[in-house]
Each structure stands twice: as structure tokens, then as C-alpha cells.
């Protein structure tokens, strides 16, 4: 099972209501994935010379102000922080690598969820409705977002095993399906210094894309290579800073439907998640073909 939803706005009006619409889509997919839920929002670019970082602390009382002060001191600049439930979004000055090295050394218990210019990832265990509530997702604005409701099959129900998975700066992956060669591929990727935190199969696919992109592939090339190297069944949705991409495996038995109007482009595992969007009655609706990369981006 699992449910995927994704919404890309083409009008400022839709951008203002992105969180509300995406939350409704996510909740509609509850019975496909009641174990955990997560979203990636692309919104409010970091100021020049800054990186936006989302972190997860297991402790909901975590002292983020203290962390921001320590991190700012170490990096020689101000770090702005805003709490979102069990997560926090930090605006960090300078290069990302310096912040990452500091966090890994001084705060190994914190989990890096996403990094980039506009991306923010929030995910947790529990019903989608609870996740929407915990992160106040309905209030979120942004240009585009994707979400996932998980029915766990390959690994445990944990926050770390929830989707989306970060695959690099401003990149993330959600997945409906399962992979059968993830153990061998995980070992292969770890040997190439790709960090994989869990036993989850999708994280391996995310790591695979991270590796291909690091080796110089474009996103399209990385996904095309994945058609050969990732064994299993899947509908992937990839979020990028400018838009998103969709890819289904060659057999394409995992459901997916796409819809487009002048105001938005949406994709979901089932159409009912899209039905609540304005103008969906008149949308162009189709099922994406197998092995074909569909991508949208801001020109």
C-alpha cells in the first residue's frame, strides 16, 4: 500500500493555500498508510549565504534556541531557528558542510532530515491527521510539496523510516512499493561513503540517487540508471527545488494518477486525494506510463 500525494502550484493563490490542500490530500490517503506520514515543502528560500536545514530531535522539549546559539558561535554568525513539532528549521550561515560536521560531532543524536535552499521535510509516526496537526501543516505556504502515508512493509515504523527521504540539497524521494535488492545495494552504497541510517528500502533508493547525482548524473540520468539497478516495484516521486519528477517501474502495478489544470499539477496514488482541489472536475487526468520520467519545473 502506501499513499503518495504531490501538488505543484502555478498561481500565487494556490501557493498561499498549499499547506491546506496538501494536508487534505494526505489525510485522504490515510487508509493506504496509517503507520507514519511525512511531507516535503518547498518554500521561503534561505537568505543569501545561508542554508536551510531541518533537524529532528527525539525529545519534544529539545532546547533548539540553545542549539542555534552554539551552532552560531561555532560558525561565526547568527542561526535563526523555528520549531515545528519534533522538528526544527534552522537558517545556517556559510557552507552546509561546516554545519553538518559540527552537528555530527557535537550533537550526534540529532537527525538531519533535509538541507537546501527551500526544502523543509517533516515526518513522524502516527496517522496523517496527527502529523498534519503536529507540524501545523495547514498553515504552510510554498510553491510545491509532496507527501507520503506509509504502510510499513520492509522495515520498522519509526520517524527515521518515514518518507520523504532526503537525497541531497533540495532533493527528496517518496516511494510506493518495495525493493527486493536493497540489502546488497545498501552495502554497495555504504562502501562508496553514502550514509544510510536505517534498514528501510526506500532510503537505499534515495541513497542510490544521491550517489548517482554525486557522480555527475543529472536527475533524469540518475532515474534512468535506477530503472536498471533498482529491482522491485515502485512509483517514485522526487521533489526538486524547481519542481518534481515521477517514475514508475516497467511493470507499473503500483497505482498512480496525475491531474493538471491551469492552476496546479497534482499526482496521487488514488484520484480521490486530488478530488478536493479546486477545478479538479475539469482537470486533465491520466495514469503515468511505465519507465517514463515525467518532470515539471519552473522555467
Amino acid at each position, binding site marked *: 500500500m502506501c499513499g503518495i500525494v504531490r501538488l505543484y502550484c502555478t498561481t500565487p493563490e494556490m501557493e498561499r493555500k498549499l499547506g491546506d490542500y496538501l494536508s487534505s490530500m494526505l489525510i485522504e490517503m490515510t487508509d493506504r498508510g496509517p503507520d507514519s506520514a511525512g511531507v516535503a515543502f518547498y518554500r521561503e528560500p534561505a537568505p543569501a549565504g545561508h542554508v536551510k536545514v531541518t533537524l529532528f530531535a527525539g525529545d519534544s522539549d529539545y532546547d533548539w534556541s540553545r542549539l542555534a546559539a552554539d551552532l552560531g558561535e561555532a560558525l561565526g554568525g547568527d542561526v535563526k531557528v523555528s520549531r515545528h513539532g519534533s522538528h526544527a528549521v534552522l537558517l545556517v550561515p556559510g557552507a552546509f558542510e561546516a554545519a553538518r560536521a559540527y552537528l555530527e560531532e557535537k550533537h550526534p543524536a540529532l537527525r538531519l532530515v533535509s538541507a537546501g535552499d527551500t526544502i523543509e521535510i517533516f515526518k513522524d509516526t502516527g496517522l496523517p491527521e496527527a502529523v498534519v496537526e503536529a507540524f501545523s501543516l495547514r498553515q504552510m505556504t510554498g510553491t510545491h510539496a509532496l507527501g507520503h502515508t506509509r504502510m510499513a512493509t520492509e522495515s520498522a515504523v519509526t520517524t527515521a523510516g518515514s518518507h520523504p527521504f532526503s537525497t541531497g540539497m533540495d532533493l527528496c524521494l517518496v516511494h510506493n512499493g518495495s525493493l527486493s535488492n536493497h540489502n546488497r545495494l545498501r552495502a554497495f552504497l555504504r562502501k562508496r561513503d553514502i550514509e544510510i541510517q536505517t534498514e528501510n528500502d526506500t532510503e537505499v533508493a534515495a541513497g542510490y540517487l544521491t550517489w548517482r547525482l554525486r557522480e555527475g548524473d543529472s536527475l533524469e540520468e540518475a532515474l534512468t540508471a535506477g530503472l536498471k539497478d533498482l529491482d522491485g516495484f515502485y512509483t517514485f516521486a522526487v521533489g526538486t527545488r524547481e519542481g518534481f519528477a515521477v517514475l514508475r517501474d516497467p511493470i507499473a502495478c503500483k497505482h498512480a494518477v496525475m491531474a493538471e489544470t491551469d492552476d496546479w499539477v497534482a499526482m496521487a496514488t488514488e*484520484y480521490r486525494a*486530488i478530488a478536493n482541489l479546486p477545478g479538479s472536475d475539469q482537470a486533465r*487526468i491520466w495514469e503515468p506510463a511505465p519507465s517514463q520520467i515525467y518532470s515539471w519545473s519552473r522555467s
Partner: protein
Amino acid sequence: MIDVDLAKSDLRSLNSRLQAVSEGSNETEWRVLNPQGAHAVAVGLTQPIRVEVQGHVGFYCGGMNQMAEIVVQGHAGPGVAENMMSGKVRVTGNASQSAGATGHGGLLVIEGDASSRCGISMKGIDIVVKGSVGHMSAFMAQTGRLVICGDAGDDLGDSIYEAQIFLRGKVGRLGADCIEKEMRPEHMEALQSLLDQAGVEAKATEFRRYGSARKLYNFNVDHADSY
């Protein structure tokens, strides 16, 4: 005309009412509003009534239909008219995968494109698609006819039995044991009659016929490479 608004009434009560229509009843015209992608709309009908669904539906719309005529004004999700026994189902938009799967009879018309596995394991249903169909359509199709006015994806008619495929456009790659066959006058005539019945304006002479090479019905070691 009886209107049922799914924004106000639940799906189960709609299906119960449709299934409870008795023989000879004058409740023959129904309209379903606001389906909002709901699954299993108008399934298991057994009387010759007409149901018009105004909007897009989810999975399995019109499944197991007998005698009823169901029109979906919009897109249909996976498995529309699955296991239909008789009657008609028409989709004015596109259809997702497995349209008409395992259907035993009746007529399914898709005015847009149908996705993969259209007519999978069909057992007597007639399916007419005005647009194109995706890969693995008519997989293991046993009897009945699949008419495709556009193109067909790869592996058309893989492991097909005695169903007939009529294709006007191109096919990516034929499936195992599926071959092109001669279009004889009787096929031409039967196809034209089916196109007319489906309300699709097309000439039977523009179609090619595909069917089984009959090499894979039973295991034969000489054909091992074809499996």
C-alpha cells in the same frame, strides 16, 4: 430520474439502492453526483437500468455489472467494469489500468485512453477504446474482442488464448504467442457492427487483427524458448 449526491449520501446506501431495483421497476434512470473519486461506484447491478455518474470515479466502477448501462462522465480509476457479465459501461475520459479485467460479457467503451493491462484475462467482454492502450493489454485474454482505435503499448496480447484484438494504430512489441492474423470479410463485418454499436466513428477496413499463434496453450518443449 433519481439523483443521488455522494456529497450527502454514502456509497454503500447508493449501491444498496441500485442493487435493490427489482425486475420491471420504473426506477430505471439514475444520476450520481459528486463521486469524488470514490471506489466501487455502481457495482453488482443486475437490472437493465441506466446510471450516469457525473464526475471522476476511483477503482472498480461498474464491476460485476449485469444488464445495466453505466456512463462515467470523467476519468475511471483501475479496474473499471471488472468482471462485467453483460450490459454496457462507457467512460468519457481516460481509464487507469486493468479496464474490463476478467470481463465475461457486455460492452465497455472508453472514449479516451486506457492504461496498462486493458482487458487482462478477458473472458467474453467486448472492449472498444477510442484512444490508445498501455502495455500488456489483453494479457492472457481468453475470449471476447479488444478494439483499439489508437496505438497499443508493448507486449500486446501476451499469452493470449482465443480473444481477438483489432488495432488501428501501431503496436510497440507483440507479447509472447500473439501474432497478426488475416482480416477476413467476416471479421470486417463483425468489427464494423461492434464499432457502430459502441458509437465510435471508425472504418473496420483500417484495422488489423491479432490473435494467438496457439503455441503456448500447453507446455511443449519445442517452444520452451518462447515462454
